[in-house]
């Protein structure tokens, strides 16, 4: 295992499409984004930024949801990634209009799906 390496930070923009059918059922009369969908957006951004490497997500170490995310919101996700040779840890801070809505930390290992 090599010493941890801090990789270049990256910011991605996630547009919460009001036409996403999820809002029909979450919830009728009061559409809000299931918070766990933010985890998926960050996960996809990590996979995209590491295209060509076989990353498998092994842990969602911590998530804190601070404010609900609404249809039409534009979420900025600031990703900071650390690699120790085998594992990649991605911490993300998510904001809408400068206000923090969530923070989370995902862990990955190299290798194909189990």
């Amino acid at each position, binding site marked *: 295992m090599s010493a941890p390496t801090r990789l270049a930070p990256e910011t991605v923009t996630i547009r919460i499409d009001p036409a996403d*059918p999820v809002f029909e059922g*979450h919830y*009728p009369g009061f559409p809000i984004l*299931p918070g766990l*969908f933010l985890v998926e957006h960050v996960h996809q951004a990590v996979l995209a930024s590491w295209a060509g490497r076989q990353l498998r997500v092994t842990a969602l170490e911590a998530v*804190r949801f601070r404010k609900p995310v609404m249809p039409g919101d534009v979420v900025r996700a600031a990703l900071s990634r650390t690699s120790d040779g085998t594992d990649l840890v991605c911490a993300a801070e998510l904001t809408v209009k400068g206000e923090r809505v969530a923070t989370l930390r995902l862990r990955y290992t190299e290798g194909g799906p189990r």
Partner: protein
Amino acid sequence: MIGAGQIREIIPHRYPILLIDRVDEVVPGQRLVARKAITVAESAYRDRADDAYPLSLLLESWAQAAVLLACWDTPNPDVVTGKVELATGIRGVRIGVSAVPGDVLVHEVVIVRALDDAMIVSGTTTVNGESALVVEQFSVALRDLSVLTAGQPS
């Protein structure tokens, strides 16, 4: 056995994001076992090249089992007239085998601590007896809609 009709009387989630098919066991205030079958007919698979069930839906399905248990004795089927369940935090989630269409997710949830309007739940998901998810701590809060709509354009 408690099916989808009764599940809809307890939690407010609806198609296409009601991700619990059936409750197999429940001890209100303590623990619950529920299941969800995955099929390729789900919208998540419309344009998906990867067979693995998306992480967000796996977590959301487990979390719905947690909310079912949390709301068992005080059903909350409509957020407009009731309260909104909001996940406030999750810690220590280990992700194991992937589930694919044809698999059944078996969720077990246990209440760790119950407060007035919040609950801490832990649990697991298995697929064919193998671990897909271990959740150390999931916290969920019940909030009045008015708290959320304050400051939002109506």
